[in-house]
């Protein structure tokens, strides 16, 4: 935060800047406000009022109905996201450690090959991956989705840790090796404790990626194993019966809340992950 001291006195141009920034804030917030307002209205209220009209009566019936139809899938998403995030982060940390501190012939080439995974359009692996999941008996299971997310999240998680460990002086590791510390001792005792910010960045990045995934969910899961994004899409895009926009919006809020909460609580790491993934990836 910039300090208050040093602010220029208000001139017309500064007023215009502030007005523009605040207007932009309003524009960015409108969809969220509309979603919240709509989710607490009754269907009649929605038809009678407009997007930004205050609800006549606040009702949570939309939220209750939404939870009834997507609640189970919410837990699917938890079951997919938690293990996939933990495993891919751990593997990424180990990979990054080897690729920066224990280089061997070919390890740089491997890093280059892995890096391309950050850009891979997943359409190009969907078919073979679904055949493989079928062969493994993991088609339409949350375990299968965990596996897929671990595999295709590896590029980013390795990148995060490798870029961090590269910045740590070699001397530190060399000294530890002279003292007789082994591969895992150095990793566990020296590097991991230093990596807390990177671990946070990686966890948050993977959490938003996997929680928000739709493509893998819709291709590799069906029925009971679907993640919440797929369930939300099914709910919103079914055309049977009268549309209940309050339920749609409540379900969308339920699907979006976990990542929003993480963003509000750990925005610093969220941003760092985005820019690291962007600038370096």
């Amino acid at each position, binding site marked *: 935060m*910039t300090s208050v001291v040093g602010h220029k006195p208000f001139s017309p141009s*500064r007023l215009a*800047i*502030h007005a523009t*920034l605040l207007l*932009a*804030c309003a524009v*960015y917030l409108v*969809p*969220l406000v*509309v979603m919240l307002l709509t989710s607490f209205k009754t269907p009649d209220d929605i038809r009678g009022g*407009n*997007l930004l*009209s205050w609800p006549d009566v606040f009702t949570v019936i939309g939220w209750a109905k939404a939870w009834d139809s997507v609640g189970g899938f919410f837990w699917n998403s938890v079951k997919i996201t938690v293990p996939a995030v933990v495993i891919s982060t751990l*593997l990424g940390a180990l*990979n990054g*450690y*080897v*690729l920066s501190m*224990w280089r061997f012939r070919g*390890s740089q080439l491997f890093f280059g*090959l*892995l890096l391309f*995974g950050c850009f*891979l*359009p997943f*359409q*190009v*692996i*969907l*078919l*073979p*991956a679904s*055949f493989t999941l079928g062969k493994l008996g993991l088609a339409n299971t949350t375990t299968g989705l965990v596996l897929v997310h671990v595999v*295709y999240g*590896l590029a980013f998680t390795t990148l995060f840790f490798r870029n961090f460990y590269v910045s740590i002086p070699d001397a530190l590791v060399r000294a530890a090796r002279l003292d007789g510390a*082994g*591969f*895992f001792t150095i990793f566990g005792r020296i590097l991991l404790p230093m990596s807390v910010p990177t671990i946070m960045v990686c966890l948050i990045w993977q959490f*938003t990626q996997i929680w*928000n*995934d*739709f*493509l893998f969910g819709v*291709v590799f899961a069906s029925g009971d194993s679907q993640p919440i*994004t797929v369930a*939300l*899409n099914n709910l*919103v*895009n079914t055309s049977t019966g009268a549309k209940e*926009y309050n339920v749609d*919006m409540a379900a*969308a809020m339920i*699907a979006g809340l976990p*990542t*929003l909460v993480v963003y509000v609580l750990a925005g610093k790491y969220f*941003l760092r992950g*985005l820019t690291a993934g*962007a*600038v370096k990836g």
Partner: protein
Amino acid sequence: MSSTAVFAKASPLDALQNWLPKLVLAPSMLIVLVGFYGYIFWTFLLSFTNSRFMPSYKWVGFQQYLRLWDNDRWWVASKNLLVFGGLFIAISLVIGVVLAVLLDQRIRREGFIRTVYLYPMALSMIVTGTAWKWLLNPGLGLDKLLRDWGWDGFRFDWLVDPDRVVYCLVIAAVWQSSGFVMALFLAGLRGVDPSIIRAAQVDGASLPSIYLRIVLPSLRPVFFSALMILAHIAIKSFDLVAAMTAGGPGYASDLPAMFMYAHTFTRGQMGLGAASAMLMLGAVLAIIVPYLYSELRNKRHD
């Protein structure tokens, strides 16, 4: 005695220490070779077969690619990608740069404002699409809001207009991603030496011209990164179309990723879907290979 014992114990341990890094990396190497490159090759093979609902390995040469060439829906999807991608990238860049420059003027509550601009990035494209589908709803959405607010005769039905539905996707995608561009540029601006700006001000240059002539040109790498990321988001866009329009009306808002999914997994045109996936990979490669090449060259110069 004790020293020899240590020696005898240490050497197999040393050998293990040498192998351990390779052992630890081995699973990931396998994953990358098989799951990335092996699978790409597999898809490449499928694109030369007549696979329909099930994979078949009957070679048909370039027939699937020729079918794509003759497929009107593929052309609509490709043209939409150009329109959607072009507008999405251009508008996100302009908004992102403008907001970043304005936010860089020592604004009170900068942290709060930044948070507001960036929060849509935390939401999935499915949630984004659901929200904007409702906001742009012809009849109940913005359409009605502006009429209620006194703009009689206002109509907004782009969502069901085959000629304009692509612009709806652009609106939603810009809302979701422009804050991210702002964050990238703000980080870049914070790295610019303030003394340059002060020196130019002493020379009598106005602030807007300093930004246009000096500051922004120095952020060329940030432009490049932002462009890459946005292009990548555009090419992969699938969720947003699925949630907002499902490709409709008809297939007016189809994008290549949607085309690929529909043909491969619901229409039993696996060969055609594989061919379209390969073309998507080609598009991504055309963008990132020059980028990676210049990145690696720069690294070597360091």
